[in-house]
């Protein structure tokens, strides 16, 4: 049980798809012009990730090893098409602003990566938790990037006005160059934070040893 929780939490920080392993970068950069777009994209991806991990884990004994990658792609593409049509029906505005990046969830390396590295070997419930952890990690990453870009680029978060009246939006942050620069600066900040944390841990261990 403990191990399962550990696998679940791994995706949230230690093996965070965006900030640590740096996979699934295309949607991370492309759709995070506003918090709601990043959040919507990540939820759609999480849905596909969890569903395909479960199905692949169920079918792991049936799928022959030689054609496993095409088989995984078919499973993933089926769920992506489902999400595409659901979003078109219920959230047409979001569907419009995410555009081609919804069908492109198929080639998001996070999903195929989890299928190959985890779901194809582990029991169903474990795979579901692992996928959910990765999906939630992706969700907070994309929502954070989207919020920062929206806050500084247009002065709102999730459409709510937050900045005071005198604030001049830094329009470049909602344009393509802003995506690269925001993520670059965030990664650098993350590096600072995690090196501080590991220094603290080291100091504590030394004190304990003395």
């Amino acid at each position, binding site marked *: 049980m403990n191990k399962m929780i550990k696998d679940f939490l791994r995706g949230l920080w230690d093996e965070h798809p965006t900030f640590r392993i*740096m*996979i699934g*970068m*295309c949607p*991370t*950069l*492309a759709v995070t012009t506003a918090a709601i777009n990043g959040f919507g994209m990540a939820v759609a991806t999480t849905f596909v990730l969890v569903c395909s991990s479960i199905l692949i884990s169920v079918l792991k004994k049936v799928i022959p090893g030689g054609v496993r*990658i*095409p088989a995984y*792609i*078919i499973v993933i*593409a*089926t769920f*992506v*098409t489902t999400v*595409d*049509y659901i979003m078109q029906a219920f959230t047409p505005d979001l569907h419009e602003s995410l555009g*081609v990046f919804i*069908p*492109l969830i*198929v*080639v*998001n*390396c996070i999903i*195929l990566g989890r299928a190959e590295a985890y779901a194809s070997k582990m029991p169903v419930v474990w795979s579901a938790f692992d996928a959910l952890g990765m999906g939630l990690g992706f969700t907070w990453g994309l929502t954070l990037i989207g919020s920062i870009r929206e806050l500084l680029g247009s002065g709102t978060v999730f459409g709510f006005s937050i900045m005071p009246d005198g604030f001049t939006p830094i329009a*470049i942050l909602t*344009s*393509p*160059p*802003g*995506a*690269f*620069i925001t*993520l*670059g*600066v965030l*990664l*650098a*900040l993350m*590096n*600072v934070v995690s*090196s501080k944390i590991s220094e603290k841990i080291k100091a504590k261990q030394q004190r304990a040893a003395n």
Partner: protein
Amino acid sequence: MEYLLLFIGTVIVNNFVLVQFLGICPFIGVSKQVSTSIGMGIATTFVMVMAALASWLIQHFILVPLGLEYLQTLSFILVIAALVQLVEMFLHKSIPGLYRAMGIFLPLITTNCAVLGLALNAVLRDYNLGESLVYGFGAGVGFTLALIMIAGIREELEFADIPKPLKGAAIALITAGLLSLAFSGFAGMI
């Protein structure tokens, strides 16, 4: 003239990597050396032109006549995967020299979202066969251009004195941001 405008528009104004964010994974992952990025760029361009052709044929001769448009994503990704496999087998048998140079990049191309994005965009914009091929070739050239540019800069960055937290991916992303800023100067050119 129309084709030339489409080509320039795809390569520079709407550069796949720097403006549309397609194919970021290889752009960050395989861009540490100019020589490897040239190989990757050529292999990707080749697959892109083939994918543009194959997806156009599938869309207009299979999916539309049979009313199966909802299978678009599924059929395109499978065709791209098969295509990459075929190219790999063909090169392995016929041009071993080129295979040794490009071989390691080929499997990566299947999950390059620039290839699938190109196929989907071409259908969305209702391009005819000629336009699709030009669009595919332009996308490949634009991808190669961006990859070589960032690889050249990253080779120089190896010798630069970069603050420790910015080392690696962080500085690469900020560099890409500046490149993207330069490319946004072309917006409105066409």
